[in-house]
């Protein structure tokens, strides 16, 4: 079966971002960028499905600026077969990205589409669900286990009270949670080989998709800073402060 994996280029998760002085957004100039951690898990799951003989081809797709080619090359080095870059602005809404991915899904006809559950920049947690709605496929969100069973896929999902397992008809959309797997590192020979793998670039116009959004960001501010606390010397002093000063116990 053909598996499509969507990956996003985001600010590296270790970077402490700063809000721009004019409140127009966060400052991403000269900041380290990486593949979104949940997308790494999605790529890893696809590669494991291929190693098990379930997946025959892995196509990795990213919607973003031309620099997102770096993240696509990373995915190719990890085991994806070919890549598609939908070259667009990097601040598209989730719905616009879902529409672009839908156009790619229509063209590629994968049996399984794997995305991360959320991107660590916008923290939206929407794209997978929206793609499922647009394509009419079933969705297995926040997956911690994925098992293909004939023409169905069983997905164990992380829900608020524990775990829930659902059975979905293929083709289906799966979004990854942290505990689905431990992503591997790309080896140097594979990074070299990945440079020769095919990478196709398309535009939203060529896919016939409008990327207009009903949302507009008016401003971005730094969160209110917490006032500096104090260090107490003993447990007794801590309890005294909590009882008499903070009055929380």
């Amino acid at each position: 079966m053909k598996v499509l994996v969507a990956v996003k280029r985001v600010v590296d998760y270790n970077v402490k971002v700063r809000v721009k002085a004019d409140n127009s957004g966060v400052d991403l100039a000269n900041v380290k960028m990486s593949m979104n951690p949940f997308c790494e898990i999605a790529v890893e799951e696809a590669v494991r499905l291929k190693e098990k003989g379930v997946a025959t081809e892995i196509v990795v797709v990213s919607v973003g600026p031309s620099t997102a080619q770096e993240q696509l090359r990373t995915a190719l080095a990890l085991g994806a077969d070919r890549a598609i870059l939908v070259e667009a602005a990097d601040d598209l809404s989730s719905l616009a990205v879902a529409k672009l991915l839908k156009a790619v899904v229509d063209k590629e006809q994968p049996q399984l589409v794997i995305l991360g559950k959320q991107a660590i920049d916008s923290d939206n947690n929407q794209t997978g669900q929206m793609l499922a709605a647009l394509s009419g496929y079933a969705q297995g969100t926040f997956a911690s286990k994925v098992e293909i069973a004939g023409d169905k896929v069983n997905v164990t999902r992380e829900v608020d009270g524990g775990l829930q397992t659902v059975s979905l008809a293929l083709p289906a959309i799966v979004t990854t949670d942290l505990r689905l797997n431990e992503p591997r590192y790309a080896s140097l020979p594979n990074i070299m080989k990945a440079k020769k793998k095919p990478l196709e670039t398309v535009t939203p116009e060529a896919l016939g998709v409008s990327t207009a959004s009903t949302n507009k960001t008016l401003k971005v501010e730094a969160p209110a800073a917490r006032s500096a606390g104090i260090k107490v010397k003993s447990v007794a002093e801590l309890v005294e402060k909590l009882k008499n000063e903070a009055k929380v116990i």
Partner: protein
Amino acid sequence: MTILVIAEHENGAVAPATLNTVAAAAKIGGDIHVLVAGAGVGAVAEAAAKIAGVAKVLVADNAAYAHQLPENVAPLVAGLGAAYSHILAPATSNGKNILPRVAAQLDVDQISEIIAVESADTFKRPIYAGNAIATVQSSAAVKVITVRATGFDAVAAEGGSAAVEQVAAAHDAGKSSFVGEELAKSDRPELTAAKIVVSGGRGMQNGDNFKHLYALADKLGAAVGASRAAVDAGFVPNDMQVGQTGKIVAPQLYIAVGISGAIQHLAGMKDSKVIVAINKDEEAPIFQVADYGLVADLFEAIPELEKLV
């Protein structure tokens, strides 16, 4: 302006996050209708009708809506919701699962996890793991929004007397089915609704040592949480995880024990009223957000704390 709130419910009761979501709806203004979708949800609908400020309760009681499968529930919500100005759901795992599917069906962008209402079309939400707050305006005909429960004080669960109306629609897409579930059992308060949360991190060293935190939590009437490090090390199940990828909490008192304070963890708890950090590393980043810090070995400090409270 009429607002549709999707009720979160479990075991025949309305989940607390629904009350916070109704509070957000009240801030937007207008009539508030609550949709209860599920199988055998008569008692939930009656409870929802008593929530303060609710004008009408819509009940979709059908086997197709059992277990809240999004393939079935989303068409119901999109069908009913098209007539409303806003559709709100709590940002729980169900809300996050279903609502984007609804938004895409209505061809509008969603606004996720709002923490404040500026006006009927403008909302605040955290981005970059809570390191920035975005003010977002929606021009959509139907504004589809998930609500972070800790951003709004819950409305009263009693005092209302809304009319209850049955909805005839039933959608069974036939694309998905429920296989089973495995829910963690706990007698302690629910993590996201607790007034006091005691959380352990990698410093707890193993799962057995969490018994010290459970003892302290029971004395305080607190819920017990964990950092991702503690979950990944297998000390505790992952539904106890507090952070960007786990649960978001904002209790009166948050006690972080043996937690260094990575930004992903802070994203889940830094809106707590009072934060206490107990850590033997005085350089740990958690001390930068803690109101009260104690540099001490947790295995000595926790039993002593349990004795003194």
